[in-house]
Structure formats: C-alpha cells, structure tokens
C-alpha cells in the first residue's frame, strides 16, 4: 500500500476508532482510578469507652488545670478545666498540644540507656533499670569514699518549691554536695527583690485581677508570662473592668497591641523610666504618705547614730531622674513620663510589674527594685490589687536529713557556681558562673553532673560555653524523658515519665494571688520503660546506703509527697483529705489574707526598705581588705554613694565595641513557640507564620529603616554576627520593631529531637554575649551587640 496523505488519515482515524471500540482505554482509566485510590495509609482511630480525667499540667510552673478526654486507655484530647481556679478553662498552646509530647515516639527515651560509643556519637545500649541505678550509685559511693562528695552536682529545672526539687536538693545535701543548682529564671530576681526590700524569701505574687492600672515593664503578659492560663483569663477581667494597661516593650508584641498605652524605651533603660515616674510622683507629692511614713525605710534623708548623713531615696530620685534626664536615657518624651506617672498615682489600685518576656530568664536586680519601688510609693504592697507577700502554705516539713562526717565536710566546701558567696551574696544559684568556673579550671571540679527537667545545652544563654563545660565533665546523667540536646551528650540516661504519666506537684503557681497547691496525677499508664525520677532518687539513695539511705525513709515518691501534703489537711484551714486533694488536683485558700500591717516586712528595719540594709551589709563584708571603690567595681556597680543600696539605673555594659557591632540583638519569646526544656510540638509549628519560619529558615524582625541601611528586603538572607558567633537568618520587615534592634525568637534551632523540630531555624542562645548583672551576677541575656551582614 502506498503511503500517502489519504492512507495516513485513514489509518489514523481507523486506529483511533478501533482503540476506542476496544475495552483498552476504559480498562486503563478504571485502573488509574483504582490505583490512585490505593491509599497507602489512612489510620483508623480505635474505638472505646469515653472517659474524662482531671489533672494539672506541669509543663511549666503555671500549673493550669486540665481535663483529659480518654477513649479506652488512650488519651485523645486535652482541654482546660473550667472548675479550676488558676486558669478557669483557658490553657496555653503548649499545654493543649501536650499529647504530642506524650505520644511522640521520635523524641522520647524508651528505656534507661548507657552510652557505648564516644560522647555525641549517639551509640546507646539499652540497660535494665537495676543496672542503671547501680551504676550511678556506685559512682556516687566512690566520690564519697574519696572524701569528695562535692564533686557531684545537679542542675534542676523543677519549680523550686515542688516536692521533686526538694527531693533532689535533699539527695545532694545528704550525700554532701553543696552544688545543687536551679535553671536561671525570673523568679530568682524577684526572690532577691523580695528579700532585699521586704525581708522575705520566695517569689512575689500579683493580684492583677483586682488592679485597675497596670504598668508592665517588659513582661509579655499575653505571651506566656506568669501562669499563661491565668494571665489570658485575667485579660477578660481587664476588658470587662476597663483596666488600664501600659506595656513597656521595644517591639509591638501581642501585649503591646492589646495595651491601652505602649511605650518603647531603649532596651535596658526600664529602671530609669520607673525612676522617672517615681520622680514625678515624689515631686508632686502623689505618694502614699501613710505608707511612706509608717512602713518604709530610707525614703527621706536620715542620720545614723554616729552622725553619718545618708541621702534618702526621695532626694536621689529628685536630683537624678527628672523627666528631662530620663527622656535622654530612655527616648521616652518627658511629658509622656509625667502623664503616665500622674495616671499611675491617681489610680485606685495601680501595680507595676518588672520582667522580661515569659519570665523564664532572670532580670536585672536594680531594675526590678526600681519598678517595685513604684508599688511602695503608692503603698500598694500586700493590698488588694497590689504585689503580695505570699501567705504560708502549711505543707508539712520533712525531718532533717542525716549527715555523716563526709557529708558535713562536703557541704562546707564552696559552691562551684559561687552563689551565696560574698561575691554573689543574694543569688541562690548561678549556672552561668558554674560554666565559667569549669571552663577556666584545669580539669573539672565536678565529676558527676545530674540533670533534671532541664535542657541547658539549648536554653542557657551562651549555650556554646555550657556545651564546652559539659565536654569537660567526666560523667553526666540525664533524667530527661526526651532526647534533647543535653541528654544526647550524657553518659547515662534514666528517663523520667512525661507530665501525663506521673504524679507531680507545683507549690504556688507563678504569680497567683492566693495560696494554691497543685497536684497532677497520671492520666495514662507509662507507655515506655520509664520511671518516675522521684522513685529513682529514693531507690538511688537506698543503694548508696548509710546515712543517705536513712534520709530517704519513704518507699516511693508518692509517700514522700503525701507526707508533705499531710500538713495541708492537718492545718485544718480547709477541711480536706488526701483523697480530696488527689481528686480535685489542688488545695487552695480562695483569697489572700491582707492582714498584718507593718509586721509583714522582715527586713532588719522591719519596714519596706528603699535603702537596703542587706545590700549595705553584703558590700561591707565584701569590701573587707580592699578599697570600697574596688569592691564596687568588682560587683559591677558603677554608681557611688547611697545610691548603691537603693533602686537605681545602671547602664548595662557590653564587652563588644559599639562601632563594630552597631545593632542590638533582642531575643523574644512567643506563646506559640515553646522555648524552654520542652521541645516545640508539631502542632505549634502550624501556628507559626511563614514570615517567622519558612522551610528551615528563621526570620528575624527588623525595622524597615534599619533594613534599608543594610540594603535588606523582605526575605533577604543575612548573617547576624556577635563576638560569640554567627547565625544565618532571613529578614522580616516589621514596622513594630524598634530601629537598630534585631528581634529573634527563642525556641528554634534544635540540634536534637525529631525531624519535625531538628534543624528548623537557629538558636539565639548560641551567639548571646552575656554580661553579668551588677550585684546579682545573673546573666544579662538581652544585651548582645551584633552586626548584620547581607549575603
């Protein structure tokens, strides 16, 4: 057949028709339809009986009440508990995503592990619990036999008054080590303010629901500060009561947007702003005369018995902090300062709050004192709607631990972190100094380090230094339930249960205005071979033997806890029993007692001290044998005279050259990005905007004006360099960011956890160039000088 046009068309048409008439195309289409519906995996949730269990979320010291919906033996949903006083139904995003912490196989240790390869190689061997506890017990026994029990250290992330924290502390002291440290937190600074100005130890509570004028000096009230569930509930009261909120923040945070007035002083000058307000209040005589005259010390000038004249707080503030001076320091217009101060002074129940971000990291001591001085000027201390001196929670005390000579000798040795020494007299614990001491010493003064509920290798400012110190410590034991950065560098893992698998308590959740004891209970049975760290400690103590074992008379953690709780129902203030507390999940006295006039202050003067006698005593003790000026220089205090003992403004110094590093790196904390020792669960990733995280790139917020100086556009890639290192980021232009400041969120940049978290973003802690806060020695983590480099 000839191949021509006609035949070609005939062939094509015939062929097409033939194929269409055959079953082939229809069969193929059918096959494709079936093939595409061959779903590889669609899970079918297992059915079961519905039940609801009440418990308390112990992921942070906020202790919100939760109700867990269960289907059969599985927990399927966490909801806020409406009949629980702290949060009244509200709960934070992390608490809501709690099941992704419990059930995420990829982030949890499933059994005790022993490192077999070199450190960091991630070669592990699963070992039985007996063997694991024995190994640690043998090591500690060895230290005690060598007469150096102080070489054991612990870093604890549990709430400081919880039974777990007390148990760990007890273990260390009965073994004979003074080196019990807690993770740095805002509570430390408040504890010092409370001690120096009011004479009592412990955090300060805030009656925010009854305040009608709130000045927050940097607390992210709606971004996770305090007990997040409570703060978000409180916000509805504020809307209802028309509470006036002034937010001081260098960036349009959620709180700043919700506030009635937003002020943005230069970061680190908040103390000056507070004192500027104090100046107006004192000058215009708007303070509470009754409180100042009867209950305070150091307000007016006074003479000591030997005739030495002291300048009073009022005189110093009038001389040094006029609105004009403060305007130059803070960048806030003098007339605004006057206006805010007058409003504050004329409010019925004003309150001033010091803090920064979520309150997971410490603040500056003098700044917190300056802010708290505002409360005292208006006589708000321990009044309805004011800052409260915590009532006693009548928990029973355990009997004192037994000490043998080895323990007694060990406890006399100086702490490795230098806390409570003459140089750092007021801080309870200084992990930053612990790191420094280890890095500066020739071997390691610590032989065994135990870590509880903490991930310092990720969360500590200047984390690289901590990691360096860890490498020097011969033996590290992690009690973390998670494969976090710190536990991956450990030698022995004794995994704890997660918060939904165990009983734990929180004594007086952060900032709550009435006494409350929260008790969580296991919601599901432990799903892996983990053990309650409390039980492990008791069993460890028994194996160490001798007096250590004698100090742990309980069979398990629950018994130890029960012995403390017994005090609550023995006190008879609330008629309850153990069963009631366990079922309710809390014990509480509904309202704070506003009793006690002047006797609430336990300072040497028995008054509220503007002039802190304790600081005077401490500096006197420290300056023995050296000149007074040198002593102040050592302590990092730049001011002179009576001001040293009073709230005042100290410019935070930075080692970095301002010319070389012209910008400031300001880490921020978001409520929907977990930045503590708990890794951010995948559901929280959903809430991040794609101008915060895009693929693996973290965005930093930069003011468009600053960005244009560096020719950076939205989404540009850049390097942030500090003296400590550099981070690769992308730029998000945000008008709400203060010019010349780079805002970077805490919580991303994990090098551990699963692929839903690992490698996403960068961790600002790596390049934080921390300096020491004057007097307290706590790390100043928000003052890193950096430069921005376009790439």
């Amino acid at each position, binding site marked *: 057949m000839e191949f021509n046009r006609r035949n070609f068309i005939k062939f094509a048409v015939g062929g097409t028709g033939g194929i269409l008439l055959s079953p082939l195309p229809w069969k193929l289409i059918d096959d494709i339809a079936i093939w595409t519906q061959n779903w590889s995996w669609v899970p079918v949730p297992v059915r079961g009986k519905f039940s609801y269990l009440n418990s308390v979320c112990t992921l942070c010291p906020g202790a919100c009440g939760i109700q867990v919906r269960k289907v059969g033996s599985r927990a399927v949903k966490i909801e806020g508990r409406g009949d629980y006083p702290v949060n009244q139904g509200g709960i934070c995003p992390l608490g809501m995503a709690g099941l992704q912490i419990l059930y995420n196989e990829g982030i949890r240790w499933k059994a005790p592990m022993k490192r077999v390869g070199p450190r960091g190689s991630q070669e592990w061997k699963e070992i039985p619990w007996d063997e694991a506890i024995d190994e640690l017990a043998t090591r500690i026994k060895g230290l005690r036999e060598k007469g150096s029990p102080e070489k054991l250290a612990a870093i604890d992330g549990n709430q400081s008054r919880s039974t777990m924290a007390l148990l760990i502390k007890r273990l260390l002291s009965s073994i004979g080590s003074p080196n019990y440290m807690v993770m740095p937190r805002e509570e430390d600074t408040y504890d010092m303010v409370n001690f120096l100005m009011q004479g009592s130890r412990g955090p300060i509570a805030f009656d925010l629901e009854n305040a009608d004028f709130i000045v927050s000096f940097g607390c992210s009230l709606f971004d996770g500060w305090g007990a997040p569930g409570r703060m978000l509930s409180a916000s509805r009261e504020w809307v209802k009561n028309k509470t006036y909120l002034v937010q001081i923040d260098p960036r349009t945070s959620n709180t700043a947007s919700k506030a009635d007035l937003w002020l943005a002083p230069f970061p680190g000058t908040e103390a000056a702003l507070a004192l500027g307000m104090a100046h107006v209040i004192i000058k215009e005589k708007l303070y509470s005369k009754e409180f100042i005259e009867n209950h305070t010390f150091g307000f007016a000038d006074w003479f000591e018995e030997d005739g030495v004249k002291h300048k009073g707080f009022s005189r110093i503030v009038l001389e040094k902090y006029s609105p004009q001076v403060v305007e130059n320091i803070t960048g806030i217009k003098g007339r605004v300062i006057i206006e805010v101060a007058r409003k504050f002074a004329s409010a019925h129940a004003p309150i001033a709050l010091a803090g920064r971000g979520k309150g997971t990291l410490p603040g500056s001591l003098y700044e917190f004192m300056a802010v708290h001085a505002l409360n005292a000027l208006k006589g708000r201390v321990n009044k309805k709607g004011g800052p409260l001196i915590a009532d006693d929670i009548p928990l029973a005390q355990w009997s004192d631990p037994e000490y043998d000579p080895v323990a007694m000798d060990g406890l006399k040795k100086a702490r490795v972190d230098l806390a409570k020494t003459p140089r750092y007299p007021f801080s309870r614990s200084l992990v930053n100094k612990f790191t420094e001491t280890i890095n500066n010493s020739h071997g390691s003064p610590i032989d065994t380090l135990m870590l509880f509920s903490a991930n310092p290798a990720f969360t500590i400012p200047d984390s690289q230094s901590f990691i360096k110190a860890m490498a020097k410590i011969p033996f590290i034991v992690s009690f973390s339930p998670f494969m976090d950065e710190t536990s991956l560098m450990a030698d022995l893992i004794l995994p704890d249960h997660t918060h939904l698998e165990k009983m734990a308590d929180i004594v007086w959740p952060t900032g709550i205005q009435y006494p409350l004891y929260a008790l969580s209970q296991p919601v599901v049975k432990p799903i892996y071979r983990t053990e309650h760290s409390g039980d492990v400690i008791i069993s460890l103590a028994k194996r160490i033997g001798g007096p250590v074992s004698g100090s742990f008379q309980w069979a398990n953690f629950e018994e130890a806890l029960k012995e403390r709780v017994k005090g609550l129902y023995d006190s008879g203030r609330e008629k309850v029993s153990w069963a009631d507390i366990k079922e309710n999940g809390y014990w509480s006295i509904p309202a704070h007692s506003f009793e006690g006039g002047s006797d609430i202050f336990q300072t040497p003067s028995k008054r509220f001290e503007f002039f802190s006698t304790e600081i005077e005593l401490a500096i006197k003790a420290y300056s023995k044998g050296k000149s007074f000026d040198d002593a102040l220089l050592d302590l990092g205090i730049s001011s002179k005279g009576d001001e040293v003992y009073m709230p005042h403004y100290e410019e935070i110094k930075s080692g970095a050259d301002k010319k070389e590093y012209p910008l400031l790196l300001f880490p921020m904390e978001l409520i929907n990005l977990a930045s503590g020792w708990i890794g951010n669960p995948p559901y929280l990733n959903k809430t991040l905007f794609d101008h915060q995280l895009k693929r693996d790139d973290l965005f930093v917020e930069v003011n468009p004006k600053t960005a244009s100086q560096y020719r950076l556009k939205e989404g540009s890639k850049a390097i942030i360099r500090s003296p400590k290192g550099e981070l690769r980021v992308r730029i998000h232009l945000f008008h709400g960011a203060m010019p010349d400041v780079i805002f970077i969120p805490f919580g991303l940049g994990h090098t551990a956890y699963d692929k*839903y978290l690992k490698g996403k973003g960068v961790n600002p802690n790596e390049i934080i160039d921390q300096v020491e806060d004057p007097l307290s020695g706590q790390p100043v983590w928000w003052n890193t000088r950096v430069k921005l480099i376009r790439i």
Partner: protein
Amino acid sequence: MKKEDTTKGNRYGMVIDLDKCTGCGVCLIACASENNIPVMYDESDKTRNITWLQIYMVTNGKEFPETEVIYIPRPCMQCDNPPCVPVCPATATDKDPTSGIISQIYTRCIGCRYCMAACPYHARVFNWFDPWFPEGMDRYLSPEVSPRMRGVVEKCSFCHHRLMRAKAKANVEGRRDLKEDEYIPACVEACPTKAITFGDLNNPKHKISELIKSPHAFRLLERLNTEPKVYYISTKNWVRRMADNYLSGEFKDRS
C-alpha cells in the same frame, strides 16, 4: 434563583471579639487535636499544610512606635449563601438546613478543588498527601472524626460531631432543643480569653444574637453577599476597614 428562608431551623454562628484575641493560637491547636488534623515536616508551607482554622496577623501599617497588630482567627465562615456548594460537581458539600453548617463528605469528594477556588475566604484545604502523624502519634486520634485520605478537600465543620454528641444526649433526656452552651466547637471552648462566642443566630435569647447588633460587629468581605455566619467585633476602625475592599470614602466610621 429562589432565595432560601434562613429564619427557620438553627443557624449556628460565631462572634469573634478581635479586641480580646491575643493571637495565642490555642484555637488552632484545639481544632487540630479535636479533628485529627495531620502534621507535615514543613508546616511553613502554607499552600500544602492542613489547618481548618487559620490565624492571620495584620498590622495597621503605621511606623514605629505607632504600629498596632491584631490577629484574625478564620474558621469556615459557614455562609448562608455558600459559594462553594453550587460549584461542587459531586455534591460532596452541602448546607445542612437544620443547622446551617456546610458539610463536607470526604468519600464523595473527587478532589477537583472547584470549591477551593470558589471560597473567597480560603477556608478550604486540599490533602496533597496521605494524612501523616509522627511515629506513635496515631495513638491520640479521636474516633469521633475520621482521618481524611489523600486527594480530597476538607474544611472546618464547626465540630459537627459535637453537635451530634449533644443531640444524642438531648434525645436520651427527651429534649428536642439544645441548651445554649451544650454544643460548642473545640476552638470556642479552648479560647483562653473567651474571645469567641458561639450560638444560634436564629435564637434571640442566645448571647450571640445580641452581640451581632453591636455597631462594631462586621463580617469579612461582606459585600460579596455570601452572608457569613462568623462575625467579628473590633472597636478599631482600621480593622473594620480592612475587612472588605472599600473604595475611598465608602467606609463608614462607626466608632
């Protein structure tokens, strides 16, 4: 087209007070965990990830320090005139006349995504992949909501299973009508600032009927006549102006 009578039956709706909303994201997470919503490695890919309730962040565009930020949580608007329903070739989505809720039947959906194109609120999402839960996380899946397969569209159902649960309970107790707070979606229940109010728009006794009369109440893209049943409240003019494409001079100041 004959206009449907929307005064009969229940018309469930929502009022979200943007003055109270702090953008914490709890509603989104409550929604995700209530409705077995899967997670991806890269949740920053907002064209592929699954969220029924999305939160938008908007600013007033003013320079430092005049900047303001607000957050707009956006569930399905459950429109009275839903643009997504008439376009569906498979009748996979429909408006329930007894509740006013727009349903989505996954097994009927053919994945053509016409509804996604029709929805002016971007309230619908497509399953580009099989549902994925990190290892071990299928243990928290709730049997009340079926996980969706690849190739179908899904969207907010106002937690319809909760309505079923409440109705079943009412039936057992011999009641015909539900009490006001007996049926509320997970996001409403979870909101820690109580910014979201839920109820029956056809019931004048419900709190929501009062709230929508506020001069500060508005809906998104109101002039498209989709008649959303999700209302917002904001006392800020710039927020209300942003809610629709107003011509200059057209926006009426109601402050």
